[in-house]
């Protein structure tokens, strides 16, 4: 049974429906990639999972239905969502940002986790008492990732992490992502326009077009398939 399963999910914004019957599954320990052009419905898919928008159809997390639940509730089930724009708490310090990630945890390992992420992302450690809003895009993305990880989530939803980032920084980011997946068995659903990098890290890929899944398959296959690449992925 997949960790996350969407069955015939439709939804959107008021009278404008964006998703039309999406079927999608993410296996535990996998990195699933959702690709597509602007306006295809990638971000909306993540919002649907998080409960930010109302949906029809079924969304199962670990076998239990979560559609219709409020975002706070979905998050507490162990789903961490890094939105587009990174969701930085700009008026809080870097350290406080990370603590927000752990705000619902009751265990005693929060401090050690904090130390750990400062080690993995040394630049965050250097700026731990700085206001998060003063950091660059790339640093904020790292911060968002670390903050999401502070919640020790079972599923990580990432919305276009490469947006606005320099290529080297993006490469770095996906490298971290890959490591987290390999070392921790973190399950990830990443939505991206930068298909190349995402598919290299991913296990399974979906291509979204106008709110429908048009192609899916093993990531490596999608990456290498000439026709798919040309038609949908632009490279």
């Amino acid at each position, binding site marked *: 049974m997949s960790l996350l399963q969407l069955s015939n999910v439709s939804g*959107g914004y008021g*009278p404008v429906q964006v998703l039309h019957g999406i079927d999608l599954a993410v296996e535990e320990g996998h990195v699933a990639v959702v690709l597509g052009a602007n*306006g295809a*419905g990638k971000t909306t898919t993540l*919002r649907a999972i998080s409960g930010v928008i109302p949906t029809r159809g079924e969304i199962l997390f670990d076998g239990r239905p979560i559609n219709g639940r409020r975002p706070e509730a979905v998050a507490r089930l162990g789903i961490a969502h890094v939105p587009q724009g990174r*969701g930085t708490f700009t008026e809080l310090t870097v350290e406080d940002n990370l603590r927000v990630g752990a705000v619902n945890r009751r265990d005693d390992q929060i401090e050690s986790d904090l130390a750990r992420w400062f080690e993995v992302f040394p630049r965050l450690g250097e700026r731990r008492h700085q206001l998060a809003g003063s950091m660059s895009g790339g640093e904020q993305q790292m911060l968002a990732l670390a903050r999401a990880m502070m919640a020790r989530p079972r599923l990580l939803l990432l919305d276009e992490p490469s947006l606005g980032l320099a290529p080297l920084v993006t490469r770095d980011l996906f490298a971290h992502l890959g490591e987290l997946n390999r070392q921790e068995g973190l399950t990830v659903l990443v939505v991206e326009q930068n298909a190349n990098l995402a598919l290299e890290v991913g296990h399974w890929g979906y291509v979204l077009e106008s709110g429908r899944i048009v192609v899916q398959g093993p990531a490596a296959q999608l990456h290498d398939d000439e026709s798919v690449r040309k038609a949908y992925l632009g490279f």
Partner: protein
Amino acid sequence: MSAPVDKSDTTVEAPAAGDGAGTAPAGTPPLWPPVPARVRAVRVVIGVVLAAAALYAPYYFEPATNRLLSQALYIAIAAMGLNLLTGFNGQVSIGHGAFFGVGAFTTAILMVDHGWTFELTIPVAAALSALVGLAVGFPALRVRGLYLALITLGLAVLFPRLTMKYVDGTGGVALLRPARSQFDSLLTFLDDDQWAYGLCLVALVVLGVLARNLVHSRMGRALVAVRDQEIAATTVGVNLAATKVTTFAISAAYAGVAGSLSVMVDRLADGTNPILYFQRSIEFLVAVVIGGSATILGPVVGALLLVALRRNTEDLIEGKEVLAPALYGAALIAIVFVLPDGVVGGFRRLLARWAAAPSNQEDH
């Protein structure tokens, strides 16, 4: 800003490219959406009916009501001006009462101390208010949203103090009452109160048309661009400072004209009340919001609604006058709840929905 969830049920475009990144704040009406022919027809009909009513009103009503209507009209003018600054340009001001006061006292002083004819004082009042607006607009560049609102609030509080100190009216207080005769109707077939109403109406229409033209011009786009995304606006060549300061000056001028007209309608310029101009500022803001910001007609509707509300809550409870502000406050809250886009905004949505209904669809 955080990813906006557009819960509106208008037929406005869905969050476009990128599913929400960097678009205008949720709920902002699209700039100039194409207006379907059906809707345009309805608007024309409404416009004609309103115009007829507006022209006929002064003959039908008695002077006291005409006075009320005239008040609504000059409040509408000030609100329109404020809307240019706040609704279209995004600079929140709680100080337009001060510009209003500048206009009022310019007129009053010219009339009382120098014997000017009322009508000639209006342009001077406008010019002076514009100058003050300019003077405020410059430092306003440096100050953001919240703080700007508070500084302008300070202006509204400061103004009556200035008048109390420097203006010498009848009996030594800062109250100026130009003689009744100075407001005589210039047209023989109109009574004084009808003349006052007429002047206000003409001013409103003229300034309204000007506002509309401004908003639809390049300058207008610049205004809105500055409101929505300042940095982006500069990249397309908008001179940020010039736009913001000019808008301030223009909107102050509107308030000044309103103030000037108020001297005719109310027959006085009152500088003795320390919170009067603050109250005026709030009035204008309320008119803008409940009428519908970022629309031309909104402030007008808002002003009418405001005066009507105030009048009715005052009349409603005999003997318990102290309850009137509570009812008034409750009414304001209710309106904002039911019509978050203001009356005009809500009306437009209704019209759009009606026009989009399958039975009303035209073949395109």
